[in-house]
Structures are given as structure tokens and as C-alpha cells.
């Protein structure tokens, strides 16, 4: 019974597999055997990765969704409450106010980082691609450095740099402004530090793409009498389109998942008064609580927050990917 069930299900998914289960004349079924052998090979190579990924990533994401439909605090009982968490999240002024406040910050972060990475990044990459430039290696190393430093450590270091009394920034400008703490300066400060960190990576991405543009195009353009600027406009930018799109997507995913630097610079509360709160810190507080609210809003609600973020990021990413696939550049 069980054996037949196994064969039947295997046959559904791996058509070739059935062949090995039954007796067949050897030569006539050479193709079948190769297929099924192929499937076995595929499985052997694929299964370990598939297994670990499913157990530790896919299954938890699904379970997270399930938790978001319960009223679980984190200890004790767990009751199914349907969409209540989501309704609360988006209608209760306290919760939805914070969600949108955090969302707004992520969105601004995305926008500003696009300016930095695509605007500044592309500009610097173009500058660096100058054939006659000396010391390109040094610049590459320098620009990339902030990205490889651990964001947590960078956060602590920046705390020191921005300190109202002993920080360099205040010393240079002869002020004593608490950059991280003042209502109006806190968010811009964190955003700038974040962008500085991330831009280096994208400068290098762009540079690699620019340098990989075949010289044929450039030589052809030279023959036609193009100067550098025209060259950039007519060759580099269009050919860089897919790279720019991909980087936009990367930026988007990173901007909405930002956590480390915000946590290191302004703590988990999104101080001051929620001005630097982002969706991930909001999630963490909701799920894991704070000093004054030890269980947050409960893990059920926390999971709902997590799922809402995930749904948004996935949806937008899918749309993005569609866009990318629709813009081939040909000459």
C-alpha cells in the first residue's frame, strides 16, 4: 500500500523515477533509467541545501504567518484570533501611527539612499572610470571601507564622533549639538551615516559595470567624434540601465530592512520620540518589548508586523523584477 503510494507520488513529481521501481527490459528503458538516474543525482545535489533552507527559513516564515493570527504573548497560551492583529495594527491609532511613522522613515531612507548611491555613486564611478586616472585602486579601497566595517561597531564609533562634548563634528564646527538626540537632526544624521556606509558598494558596482562595457562601442563612438560627456550619455547610461535597476531593487530591500546602524546609533526605541524609528526597530519592540513593557505587544502582534513588512517588500520587489525583465538594451 505505502509502496504504491510512494510510487504514485514520485511519478507525479519526477516522471522518470517510476521506471526504477518496476521491472523493465534493460535496453528498452535506457532513456528512462537515465532520466531517473538524473533525478536521483539532482536530488542528491539539491537536497541538503533545500532541506536546510526549508527547515530554517521557509518553515519559519510560514509559521510566522500563522503566529500572526494568534494572540500569543510569548509565554503561555496561544489562541487563534483571525485577522484581529492586522486590523488592530492598521486601525488602532497608536499602532498604525507608529507603523506609518516607521514606514515613512524607511521610505525617506530609500529615497535619500537612491540619491546617494545612484546619483553620487554613479557620478563617482564615472569619475573613477576616467582612463587616465591614477590611484584608482586607492580610491576604490577607501570608498569601500565603510561598507565592510561591522555596522554595529560603526554605530558606536559614530556615537563617539557625534558626541556633543567630545565628538569631532562638534569640535570642527565649534558647536555642542547633540546630533543623535535632537528632534530635527536625529533622523537626517542617521540617514547620512547610513548612506555614507552603503554608497561605497554601489560605486564599485557601477564602476565594474562601466569598465565592462565593451571597448568596441567606445571606439565606434570615438570615430564618430564623441567627447566624454556624449559618450556617457549615449553609451554608458543606457547600458547601465539594468545595473541601475538592479541597484534600485537592492537599495529598496536594504532600506526597508535597515536595522544595525539605527540600533547602534539611536537604540531600539527610535529615539528621540520616534524620529528614527524604522520598521525593523518597531518590529523588535513590538515582539520583544522594552524595559517598561516587558512583553511588547506580544509575539502574535509582532509576527503580524513582520508579515506586513514582508508582504510589502515582496510585492514591490516582484513588480520591480517584472520591470527589469522588460528592458533589454540592444544596439
Amino acid at each position, binding site marked *: 500500500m505505502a509502496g504504491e503510494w510512494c510510487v504514485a507520488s514520485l511519478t507525479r*513529481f519526477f516522471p522518470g523515477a517510476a521506471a526504477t521501481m518496476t521491472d523493465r527490459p534493460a535496453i528498452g528503458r535506457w532513456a528512462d533509467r537515465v532520466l531517473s538516474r538524473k533525478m536521483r543525482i539532482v536530488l542528491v545535489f539539491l537536497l541538503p541545501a533545500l532541506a536546510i533552507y526549508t527547515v530554517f527559513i521557509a518553515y519559519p516564515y510560514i509559521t510566522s504567518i500563522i503566529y500572526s493570527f494568534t494572540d500569543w504573548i510569548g509565554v503561555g497560551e496561544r489562541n487563534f484570533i483571525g485577522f484581529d492583529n492586522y486590523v488592530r495594527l492598521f486601525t488602532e491609532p497608536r499602532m498604525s501611527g507608529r507603523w506609518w511613522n516607521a514606514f515613512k522613515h524607511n521610505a525617506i531612507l530609500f529615497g535619500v539612499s537612491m540619491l546617494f548611491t545612484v546619483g553620487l555613486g554613479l557620478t563617482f564611478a564615472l569619475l573613477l572610470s576616467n582612463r587616465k586616472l591614477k590611484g584608482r585602486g586607492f580610491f576604490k579601497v577607501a570608498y569601500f571601507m565603510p561598507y565592510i566595517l561591522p555596522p554595529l561597531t560603526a554605530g558606536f564609533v559614530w556615537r563617539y*564622533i557625534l558626541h556633543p562634548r567630545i565628538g569631532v563634528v562638534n*569640535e570642527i564646527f565649534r558647536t555642542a549639538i547633540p546630533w543623535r538626540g535632537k528632534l530635527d537632526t536625529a533622523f537626517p544624521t542617521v540617514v547620512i551615516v547610513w548612506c555614507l556606509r552603503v554608497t561605497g558598494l554601489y560605486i564599485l558596482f557601477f564602476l565594474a559595470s562601466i569598465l565592462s562595457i565593451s571597448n568596441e562601442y567606445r571606439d565606434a563612438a570615438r570615430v564618430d567624434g564623441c567627447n566624454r560627456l556624449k559618450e556617457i550619455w549615449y553609451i554608458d547610461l543606457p547600458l547601465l540601465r539594468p545595473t541601475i535597476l538592479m541597484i534600485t531593487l537592492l537599495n529598496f530591500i536594504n532600506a526597508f530592512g535597515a536595522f544595525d546602524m539605527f540600533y547602534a546609533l539611536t537604540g531600539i526605541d527610535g529615539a528621540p520620540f520616534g524620529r528614527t524609528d524604522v520598521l525593523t526597530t518597531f518590529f523588535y519592540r513590538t515582539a520583544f518589548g522594552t524595559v517598561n513593557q516587558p512583553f511588547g505587544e506580544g509575539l502574535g502582534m509582532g509576527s503580524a508586523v513582520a508579515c506586513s*513588512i514582508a508582504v510589502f517588500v515582496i510585492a514591490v520587489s516582484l513588480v520591480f523584477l517584472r520591470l527589469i525583465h522588460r528592458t533589454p538594451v540592444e544596439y
Partner: protein
Amino acid sequence: MGHPNSLRSILLKRIGSRALLYVILIAYAVLTIFPFLMSLISSFKSFDELYASALRLPSVWQWENYAMAWEAGEFAQYFQNSVFVTVISIVGLLVLGSMAAYALSRYEFRGRRIIQTYFLAGLVLPFRLAVIPVFILLRDLGLLDSLWGLILIYIAADLPFAIFILTNYFRTLPIEVEEAAVMDGAGPFRIYAQILVPMLRPALATVGVVVFIWVWNDTFVPLVFIQSSEKFTLMLGLTNFFGRYLRQWHYILAGSMITLMPVVICYLFASRQFIEGLTTGVRK
């Protein structure tokens, strides 16, 4: 031919725009290196000097800040833990990832696209959001508060990236070599191990480098899953250290530099590989 004025002005324009180029480039370089350099220098100051002025050089280079931070921060143990977790995660990831990428790239079968998309989905979602169930899972498996638990999580979370990069790279590899090997009667394992893995080296380096940075620098996963202090990773140890010596910036900076040093040294020695590695994915 030659009007001395215009020649000079042409030269000037040349030098002018070049000089401007360098000025801009160097200015930005200063902006990016400055925080690191500054903190490095400040970490050698004594507490009072730190408060006197941020910009001056230390009069006496206080190496004892580092000795103190190293000991009080118990960084030796944390260092070991970080190295262990990072190395094993990378190795495991590269092995499993390349195997999966091989199956997905070189074999045609039903469900291949689905599985590829399945893995790709993991790229888009930040791991943090699945933390709660992973926590319960590890608890039930008895892997809470264990470095192996961290390793499994890192491998699982970085597999999408590895598979993405590797499958893309596979597409650029000429299939003739493998076909020749098949003609010679080599089995898939031989092909994989002896032919493909060497050819995959650049992509493997890319993945290895990126994952090294991610895993080494990560604070969130150890923060949630490790309780015993002897199992802290370096970053977690630094968080702890920061909390304890909250206002003693000379120690904080020294401790921070200690956690930065491995990455920076690797980076400076192998910057070409780092950069090439990270941008290979883009080129291909």
C-alpha cells in the same frame, strides 16, 4: 602654429579639470576613511585627552587601552567563537550552495523554475522577520545557545544569495568541458568535484567574501540566540562591553578597533579580491 596664450589656457584647463577631479575624489575619500582613522587615533588617547580635544594626536600612545579592553572584554574567547562560526558557515554554504547551483543549472527537470524562485524569495526577505519561529525551532531541537545553531541559520539564510550568484555564474561557463568529461565517462560527482569547482573559483570567492562580511559583522542573530557569555561572538561581546563601559570612550574605542581589525586587515591585504569578488556578480 600655436598661440602661446591658447596653448597655456588649454593646458590650464586640462590641469584645472584634472585637479578638480582629484580634489573631489580625495575629498570623498577623506570623508569615508576619516571616521575610521579618527577613531583609531582616538583609541590610543587617555580618557582625559579624549575630553580635551578630539583632533589632537595623543601625547602618549596608550597601548594599555587595548590590553584592558582585550582582557576585560574577554575578546580572546569571542574571537575564537566568531572565527569558528564564520569559517564553518562559509564552508558549509559554499559546498551546499554550489551543489544546489550545479543541479539547478545543468539539469533540466520539472519544478526547476519553482525551486529556483523558491530560493530567490529568500533574497528578498530580511531574516529578522522569521526570528520568532526560528527561535522556537532551535529550542525544540536543543540548539539554542549553541554556535552550531548560529551556523545552521547563517547557512540557511545565505543560501539564496549563494545560489543566485552561482547559478548566474554557471550560465557563463562553457558547457564543452563538461560534455567532454561525460564522453570520457565521468560521473556527475567527478564532474562536480574535479572540473566545476575549480572553474567556479571566482564565484565561490565572491560568495565567500560577501558572506564573510555578513556573518562576521552580524549582531542580531547572536543577540537573540546566544545566552551564555562564553559563546558570544565578537560583535555580541562588543555590545556587552559597550554596555559595561558606557562612558569610558577610550576603552570603547579600543574595543571597537579590536573587532574591526580582522576585517580591515583582511580587506587591506586582499582588497582586490574583495572588490573584484563583490563586483563579479554584477559583471556577469
